């Protein structure tokens, strides 16, 4: 080694994580996966956005009250439903709805959440709800497809053995997870802004300023939501050396989460909702700061829990 070189420094946890983040971020971009997923997400989003615009315009043509239209479309987006939150929020189409029984709109597990969701619907421009909904919907699947081989790939090809003498498992996990989150976030952000531009072009009276404010709030903190699913992906990926098996684990995990969420609609099992990451998603675009922050905290906890589990597996397994 050239004696003129400065001696190596002692690396702290943060610096080590930053080095891994930089390398992983660049490496992921070099692969074909981000571009492929960007294309799929982009096309899928625009297909859905086209359908949304059609629905929206149809509602306008029928002279539907904008507030009513908003609640109806929001209900379609959230596709859930037990009871109305408040009398005044029951969605009804002109003419038919006055005599029809009230249509339940949103799930009711806790009144606080109901109020928050109601607040979201009332305060957020409707197209933005669509954008948020798309982001929240695709994140789990996106995390699986982007990160199923996050650790299993390195284990399978034994690249992890080059890292073993140089890198602690903690910074390795954090660097990998954060780089995945950053890339997913950038892809989602790009697609969302394209959809917003499309709405601004297609929809009359589109509140671009309000949309941007809501988007800023949502996207600045949706990282915690993404981190939860990427960390779950990392944990499941750490369990096996075979990326395809890791992919299977993760698809099964998404199905199980969805199934538990469905089970939770049965009152005796309603408590299950509290254990599922999906339950707290409304908080991320809630205008209620307390609910927003508690939701953010819960996602941070979920992300930490899954990262911790991945760390436990990584430190105890043979490489």
């Amino acid at each position, binding site marked *: *080694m*050239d004696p003129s*070189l*400065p001696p*190596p*420094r*002692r*690396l702290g946890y943060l610096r*080590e994580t930053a*080095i*891994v983040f930089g*390398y992983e971020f*660049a*490496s992921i971009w*070099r*692969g074909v996966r981000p571009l492929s997923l960007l294309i799929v997400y982009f096309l899928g989003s625009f297909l859905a956005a086209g359908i949304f615009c059609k629905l929206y315009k149809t509602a306008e043509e029928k002279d539907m009250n904008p507030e009513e239209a908003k609640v109806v479309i929001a209900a379609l987006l959230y596709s859930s439903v037990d009871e109305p939150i408040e009398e005044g929020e029951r969605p009804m189409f002109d003419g038919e709805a006055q005599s029809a029984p009230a249509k339940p709109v949103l799930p009711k597990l806790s009144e606080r959440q109901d109020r928050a969701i109601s607040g979201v619907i009332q305060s957020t421009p409707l197209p933005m709800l669509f954008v948020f909904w798309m982001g929240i919907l695709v994140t789990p699947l996106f995390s699986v497809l982007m990160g199923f081989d996050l650790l299993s790939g390195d284990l399978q*090809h*034994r*690249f992890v*053995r*080059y*890292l*073993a*003498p*140089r*890198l*602690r498992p903690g910074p390795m996990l954090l660097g990998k997870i954060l780089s995945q989150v950053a890339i997913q976030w950038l892809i989602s952000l790009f697609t969302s802004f394209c959809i917003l531009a499309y709405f601004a072009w297609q929809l009359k009276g589109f509140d671009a300023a309000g949309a941007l404010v809501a988007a800023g709030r949502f996207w600045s903190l949706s990282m915690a939501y993404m981190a939860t699913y990427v960390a779950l992906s990392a944990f499941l990926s750490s369990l096996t050396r075979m990326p395809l098996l890791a992919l299977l684990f993760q698809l099964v995990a998404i199905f199980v989460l969805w199934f538990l969420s469905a089970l939770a609609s049965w009152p005796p099992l309603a408590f299950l909702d509290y254990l599922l990451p999906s339950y707290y998603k409304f908080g991320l675009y809630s205008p209620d700061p307390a609910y927003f922050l508690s939701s953010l905290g819960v996602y941070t906890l979920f992300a930490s829990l899954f990262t911790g589990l991945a760390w436990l597996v990584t430190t*105890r397994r*043979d*490489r």
Partner: protein
Amino acid sequence: MNPISMRALRKTFGRKVAVESLSLEIGPDQIYGLIGPNGAGKTTSFSMMAGFLHPSSGEIAVLGCRPGKVEALRNRIGVLPQDALLPAQTRCADLLSYFARLQGFDTRSSRRLAAEALERVGLPEAGELRCGTLSHGMAKRIGIAQAFLGDPELVLLDEPTAGLDPKHAHQIRELIRQQRRAGRCIVISSHNLHELESLCDAAAILDHGRLVLEGTMATLTGSSRQIRIQLLPGAQPELASLRALPQLKSLDFQAASGILVLEVEAARPEELITAALGLLIAQGQLIAGVSKGESLEAQVMKLI
């Protein structure tokens, strides 16, 4: 303190015992070989030293620390793992630079170290190539380059010249010798007994996960206690005068092959070689060759 110390080390995979009761002390400033057939436990032992595998029981210390304790071993240990793939999309220089940064070097120094490392393994032009485009031999040399990156105190090499052409294998052996002269301890696991014999100061022979024999290369090959003189086939030397040589323990003559095997008690076998050759030449015998001890390969074949 020895760079590597193992006591009663055991590793199992399910019911299969890969390494059993392995105790070894590997001293500083030497090239140490791990020898054995497939399934002998070489790579498993190597992997425990490198921190890739956790021992099932027993104790192991590398540079005084538990293997895998990165904070204590960072930049002090270099490892060439067997069959580990490099990331296909990454450029060689970027990869080496990444490794150097993980060893604590700043960005500028890392780039210089990466360039030096490529130069050292004879691949100065490969920096811009993506790892996925490298031939097996080139990838192996990149692997060796990263093992010596930052000049660590201890370097573990698993099959360092496997798959290399003779020229590059020679270059890597020279690099290993040069690093040893610089005071590094190098542990090599290999099937290539000729290479290990020429490189190593000491070695351990493993079989079925157990230590069969361990010692300096001179001890293992018997070079300090046995002299083999090759005469022409059919030669009939006068053995009585040879038997009268001082420091000779025993003498065996294999008439069919013309090989004289002299067991020595001397501290300096060279004196006996000179005396024995003097007698044989005086008898008019033609000498076809002289060697000390048996080849490592012959010794290993006897043991396993």
